[in-house]
Each structure stands twice: as C-alpha cells, then as structure tokens.
C-alpha cells in the first residue's frame, strides 16, 4: 500500500466508524513498505522488500473490549470486521483498568518523513552496499553489514472524535569489518530519517579503521577503569543498552508499586530527588529536527516536549492513563525519542583530554542482572583501545562489565557532542570507575 495521505486515511477511518454499534470504537489504519539488504563474507546474502497494510478495529461495551483486524478494504469486509470486533468485545472479560477513549487532541507539528527514503529501491540498496563492500574487498578486509529502510504511516480515529495521523521514514545501517585473519574487528552504525544523510562508505571506513587498529589486542587486568563510551556503547539499534534500559525503567506505576529503581523506601517514588550527576539532563522532543518522532503515542496521547531528568533530578515519569487518573496527575506517555544534553567536545577531543582510560566502541549482549539497582552485564566488542596521555596506545582484549547506568551517570567525568543513535541524541560519555569483571577472548 502506498503511504496514504492524512485525508485518504481519514476517509477510510470515518467510513469504518460509521458502522459502529458499540459504546465506543477506535480504528487504527497503518501501512507501508520495508526493504533490506544483508551481506557477509564480502557478498550479499539476502535482500528483500515487503509491503503491508492493516486496519484494526477495537469495539468496547462498558469495560469489555474486542479487537479485529483486516487487510482488505471493501465495504463488506470493513463492516464484517466491525461486527467481529463487537462480537469479541461482548465475550471478553471486563477490564477493571479500562479507560474511556480520548476525545479530540491537539498535536505538535512533526514530520519524521523524507521522500528520499520513501523512494529507496533495490538498486539504491545495491549501490549503498557496493559503496561499503568495495573498500573492504580492496583492503582484504571482510565485511558483514545490514541496511533496513522503512516508510510507513499510521492513523487513528475513534467515535469520540479523536483523529491522528503520522507518517515516517527511517534507515538503519550497521557494519562489522573483520581482518582476514580474524584478529581484528571494527563496527560502525548510523540511523537517519533522510537517507541522503547516510554515507555507507563513511560508516564503513570507521569500521575498517577500528578493525585494522584492533588486531593483536593485549590483555589488561579486569577492574575499575575510566572509560570513554561512544554513543553506540550507550544505545544500540539491535540490542538492549544501558541508556535505553534507564529510560524504560522510569514508569511511575512500577515505582509506586515498589518494584523499580525509582521506588522510595517506605512507599511512593523518587520524583524530585537528585539521583545523577548535575550535568545529566534528558528530554524528549518530537520536533527536534535531528531526531524527529511521531506526534502521538499508541493510545493517541500527544507527544510533547518534556524533561525527564534535569540537572540530575528526576523531573517527570511516564504514566499510563489508568495510573495517572488513580494518582490524580497528568498522564504523560513515554517519549518517542530521548535527547541527552552533552558538551561541545568531539570524541577526538575527549581522547586527547584523557590521561589513562579505555575507549569502548560498542557494548554487547546486555542483560539485566538486578532490576532493583538496574545492574546490567554485557561485553565490549568490535574496537576496544587503551588510552594514555591523550593518545590511543594499543588495542585491548574485550571485557565483561557489570554496571548500573545509575552509578555510571554519577561517575561522570566529561560529555561530548551528542549524536543520533537509535532515533535518539546521545553524547559520548567519559565515566570513571566503570566496572569490568572479567576478560573475554572474543574478537
């Protein structure tokens, strides 16, 4: 299905809403195209493209809700889907936490969409892949990479008058380059809304440099080290990560219930407490031009500019609508992106200003160890280097870490210039006393 315009989507949704016989009904219409290309051992291994469209109807009687989905849009099919949703709703158990649907909302003007990305085709992907493979082949390095591009829209309407529309595009590219002898490995990644801002060649060159520089790594004793964590070590496009884990653990209900790092001893939450270094400020902003995101959350709530952490103090926490009503507060949805404020230094400046430390390209297989303290474990990967007197001295063997982002953001030494990663803006961070607990032989 093509990317429907706001008006085209609304016409279909309004037609479906007219069939409603339930107390409340909402319609969600979504569609788009996604394409990908994957390569390994310096050759393309798979590539594909798919289009999808679906219309989902949720009907409600009292506190009983039922959903039915369809991907055919003739009148008979649409009406049948509404009747099916109503049938499912009548038989569903009551949900005591059901919240009545929202009425009309006001949304910020965001447009996380670029025509250049929407137009990508197999030839574009093949050329982008060639730009990445060719320099690796020429230097006898072995490349494995992946690029995925998406263009989609979604629209919501309900019988209370809510109407929302969003369209967006994204491209994610990552590459791992290994030396032919398998002794060196480097990584590069980039994600953009507008594919004209992506150079697979430039990202590949970063990975090539790291691969060549990381061969013949030396072993350092595990222990507490000053580290410079590159943005890809803080947020991952493909794995859990320390910063995303922190942001996603801020839910107010979990904190109120006593099962979160934001739970207060004796009850309540730690809202308003200073839990991080005073240089830590984290916001969400769907209108930020570098990381635009959708104007509404899945349940139709507006995405606004909001500060989660300001100068180390917890300022806001996301609430479900049910929990917000119970607590008598505003139902702030989780953000569509997050933006961590940083400094002006480049990564090179940060290395220059480091007496002794370890540069970490990327962290991997990051999993929770203790939800109470947000302790996570994982490993360094694809480019880990020892820094002395402001210079990279030699590559080091990979480490396993056990660390909490809460502790990490209290041990802050310096912050660089934020860059886009995983749809968010995150600065490279210099952290003291980062805990490495064992060595890994993995390259």
């Amino acid at each position: 299905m093509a990317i429907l315009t706001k008006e085209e989507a609304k016409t279909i949704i309004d037609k479906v809403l007219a069939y409603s016989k339930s107390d409340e009904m909402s319609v969600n219409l979504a569609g788009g195209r996604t394409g990908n290309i994957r390569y390994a051992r310096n050759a393309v291994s798979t590539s594909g493209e798919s289009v999808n469209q679906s219309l989902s109807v949720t009907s409600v009687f009292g506190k009983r809700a039922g959903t039915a989905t369809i991907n055919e849009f003739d009148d008979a099919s649409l009406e049948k889907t509404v009747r099916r949703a109503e049938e499912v709703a009548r038989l569903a158990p009551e949900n005591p936490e059901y919240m009545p649907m929202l009425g009309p909302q006001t949304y910020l003007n965001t447009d996380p969409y670029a025509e250049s990305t929407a137009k990508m085709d197999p030839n574009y992907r093949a050329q982008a892949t060639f730009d990445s493979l060719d320099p690796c082949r020429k230097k006898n390095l072995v490349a494995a990479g992946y690029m995925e591009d998406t263009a989609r829209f979604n629209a919501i309407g309900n019988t209370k008058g809510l109407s929302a529309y969003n369209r967006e595009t994204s491209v994610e590219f990552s590459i791992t380059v290994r030396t032919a002898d398998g002794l060196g490995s480097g990584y590069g990644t980039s994600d953009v809304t507008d594919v004209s801002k992506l150079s697979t060649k430039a990202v590949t060159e970063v990975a090539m440099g790291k691969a060549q520089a990381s061969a013949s790594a030396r072993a350092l004793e595990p222990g507490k080290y000053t580290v410079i964590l590159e943005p890809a070590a803080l947020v991952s496009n493909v794995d859990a990560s320390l910063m995303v884990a922190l942001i996603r653990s801020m839910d107010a209900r979990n904190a109120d219930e006593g099962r979160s790092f934001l739970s207060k001893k004796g009850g309540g939450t730690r809202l308003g407490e200073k839990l991080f270094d005073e240089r830590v400020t984290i916001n969400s902003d769907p209108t930020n031009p570098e990381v635009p995101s959708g104007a509404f959350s899945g349940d139709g709530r507006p995405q606004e500019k909001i500060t989660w952490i300001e100068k180390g103090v917890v300022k806001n926490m996301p609430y479900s609508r049910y929990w917000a009503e119970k607590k008598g507060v505003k139902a702030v949805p989780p953000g569509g992106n997050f933006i961590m404020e940083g400094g002006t230094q480049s990564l090179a400046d940060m290395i220059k200003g480091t007496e002794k430390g370890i540069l970490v390209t990327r962290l991997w297989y990051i999993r929770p160890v203790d939800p109470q303290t947000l302790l996570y474990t994982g490993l360094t990967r694809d480019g880990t280097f020892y820094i002395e007197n402001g210079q990279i001295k030699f590559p080091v063997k990979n480490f396993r870490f056990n660390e909490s982002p809460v502790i990490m953001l209290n041990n802050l030494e310096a912050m660089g210039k934020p860059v886009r990663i995983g749809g968010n803006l995150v600065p490279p961070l210099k952290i003291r006393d980062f805990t490495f607990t064992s060595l890994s032989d993995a390259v």
Partner: protein
Amino acid sequence: MGLGTAGIILPNLPAFSRTVSPEQLLEPGLDVAVKKRLADAALNAAKSKGATYTDVRIGRYLNQFVITREDKVQNIVNTESYGVGVRVIADGCWGFAAVVDAKNEADTAKAAETAVAIAKANAKLMKEPVQLASQKGYGEVSWKAPIQRNAFEVPIKEKVDLLLGVNDAALKNGANYVNSVLFMVNEQKYFASTDGTYADQDIHRIWPIFTVTAIDPKTGKFETRNALSAPMGMGYEYLQRNPVDKVTGITTRYNKGYDMLEDVTAAAKQARAKHAAKSVEAGKYDLVLDPSHLWLTIHESVGHPLELDRVLGYEANFAGTSFATLDKWKSKDFNYGSKQVNLIADKTQVGSLGAVGYDDEGVQTQKWDLVRDGTLVNYQAIRDQAHIIDEDHSQGCCYADSWSSVQFQRMANVSLEAGKTPLSVANMIKDVKKGIYIIGDGSFSIDQQRYNFQFGGQLFYEIKDGQIAGMLKDVAYQSNTQEFWNSCVQVCDASDYRLGGSFFDGKGQPPQSSAVSHGSSTTRFNGVNVINTARKI
C-alpha cells in the same frame, strides 16, 4: 543473537498476523489437496522461468496469549497469519518471495516468478554458486505433534480461571504482585519441493509462565521468582497435574506435566524468603545445576557456537561468529569438555520445541552427536552448507519463523546426555564441600564468539560439606565455555532428565524467532567463579 531480554516477555508474533476470534483459531486450514495445487503452480512457474530448484512453504500460524496480573485479565490475543513463501535457485543463486493470503494458483505462481527474478538479479553479485546437498523426495507425507489436548480447543474461561487461580494463590502466599501468561502456538505448515516431497505438518507449543514479586517495606527492596515451567512442544496436557512428572527436593520441579498452582505457591514463599537470604561471598564454588537452569547455559555455550553459519561468518554483524572454528573440528581432538560431556543435536525428541517430521527444506529430521566424550565431532548444518563439513546430506535443521521469512540454519534441540552411572541429585550434593545448587534460569549474557559468559538463576542454595545450608542471593557465575565444560565432573542419570527451552531464540537480520528445547540431568561443575551482584544506588 540469543534470547530476548528477561522478565515477562511480550508476545513475538509472526509477520502479517491479524487479530481473530478464538473460534477462528479452530477453523480448519486449507485442504491438503488445495495446498498441493497451490504448491505445484509455484513449482511449475519457477521451473518455466529457469529455476533449477524450488521449494514452497504454505503456512498458517495461529497464536493465542492470555495475559493477567493479580485479579485482572489484561489481554487476550488471538492471531492468525497465512501466506506462501517460495524459494528458488536460479543462475546458481538463491531468490525468495512471499505472498500474503494467497488465494489461488496465480498468486503462488507470481511469487515464484518474483523469486526467480530476484535470484537472477542477485546472481550478478554472487561469489560462488549454491551447492545444495542432494535430497530424496518423500512423496506425500504428513507429521503431527503427538498432543493429547489441543490448547486452542480449551475454552478461554478455563485458561482465565487457571491464571486467576494462580494469581490468587501467589497473593495468599506472600506475593505483593503477580503477572501470569499462557502462550499457545499452532504452526500448520505445508512444504513442497522439486525433489518430490509434499509434507503436511501440524506443530503445537505451549508455555505457561509467571513472575511473582515480594516487597519488603522496611528495606524498600523487592525480590522476584519466575515460574519453573518449560515451554514445550505439547498441547494443554502439559498443564495436567501428574505426580509422576514431579521431581521433589528442596523445591518441586517438573517434567512433562506442570502444576502451575503448586509452583506459584512455592514461588511466593521463596520470593519472600529471598529477602532474608544470605548475600553470596564471591569466590570459587562447585556448582550443581538443575536442568531448569542448565538448559540456558547449553543453549548459549553449545547450541549457538556450533551453528555452522556462525562459524563461517554469516552472522558476524549481528549475533557474532564462533570460537569453535573449522580447524578445531578438523583436528578431531578439540577438547570441548571433560569425558563426561556428550552433547546431542536432536530434531526428533518427543515433546521438545524443535520436534518436527521434516525441516523447512524437506529433510527428514535426525539426531546426531555434536560433542562425544568431550571432543568436538560435528556442527549443525543445512543443505547448502553440508559440503563444507564433508557431509553428503543436510542434518535437517532449517527453519523460517513465518511463510514470509526465508528459511535458514537454526539451532536444533541441543541437549546434554544423561550420565550412564546411576546417580541421584541427593548423592551428587552429598559429595560437594563448598558449592551452590542453582535452580531456574535468570540473567544471561555471552560474548559474540561464545567464550565468556555470565549466568544468574531463580533459586540459589548454599552447599556446605554435603548439606544444603540455606538460601543465597546476589549470585551470578562467570566462566569460559571450554573451561566450564571441562570442569564438568558428574551428570545425574536419566531418571532426572528434563527439558528446558525458549520460545524466542533470535537470529538473523531482519531477526527471526525460533523455539528450541535443551535437555539435561542435574550436573556438577567444579571450581566455577561466582560474583556477588549486590550494588547500592
């Protein structure tokens, strides 16, 4: 790369799933004669466009999830996904195309033609043509999981009553919060290929899980305990309470029948007891690992590194490569573990998640050795890889998580063979001077070549001079795969053998999910490094 993040896992639905009513899950799929017609149309169309090999997968994937917390049903999800995927070799190169809701021969023929066009386009970038191990055709065959009670035929009310009863028992026994979920899956798969196989298969899986949370208001701390159930290739009979399926001991564990009510009652008390448990002193311990725990260590440190595509570098950018390189296998004396260690790949094991009659490229499933008497002897390979390890046939472990995904090499059930000498858990513990007995899986992480790992668990008991001395907390162990399996000194006998497993093993880009079981008996590993995970924030 490995398993999804821990906690109550969100349903991982096949692509193009649509929400349906519970009744629609019981409607029969296409008649087998219709499926054959649709498949033949694709086989013929691909051949006429120049394909030298074609396979067609017609898939109907049904899922049901019942999700509750405390006294509330949070969601009941019923989904169906139907479509056809066609894979071809043309000009020596693979091509794949899929079509949602294929209705007639024209739809499947068109997908086949697209697949051929893609193969021909990709052939320009090819380095070497596909070498496909030969495979005999089996004719028209079928396979059905030997279930006793189709979970989709069990009324929703019975499932809701079970979970709300479980939640009630948790709250009455010391839990402050409880989340419980029933996952049920039915894959109706039809495979046809130019080798002359037409295989119709019916696969069922079930996974009941919960997490209980106990809060200590005095300290502001919370502790959790997850279910000791296993995801199984079974029907609703897995939820029958059957004394013969129970393994009694310090806490009850389960074999092919799971007593969810009994387990949650114990879990609530144990989550409460964890508050008073001793924080572990870091150091070397002998570990006694229950099958409900060891499955995950097997999965990460044996199952993944012995996938041939990882060894060859196809997963380098995502899941990673493997320390178990071809030279180690060729040497015929790579010491993966101690003499006690025998690790088996098996796609035929009854009740396991990986059991099918035929894999997703028409190969009858098998059982084979990976590690025999501690030595690495084989990998897991599919038809286009068999020649690399000097095999003339595939090992039958090719899988796609949807009709819309292209099939590739996935992990078979990989299990540790039970000890041949009679040995009970009690007798194993009797000989341990300083050890920890670990039950249930917890935190898990391993590097991209599968050397260094760290695992947690659900329940930890200190062993002192052959006796269980009490509960421990803040435990995780770190080791290196080869060192760990070489520290294996004893494996209990077959009477203790049980399966664990995962519904959500992820691999590939775009990622695909696969369900896989891992069996073992309780096993002892000597002198493993244990760390203390307590922190103050």
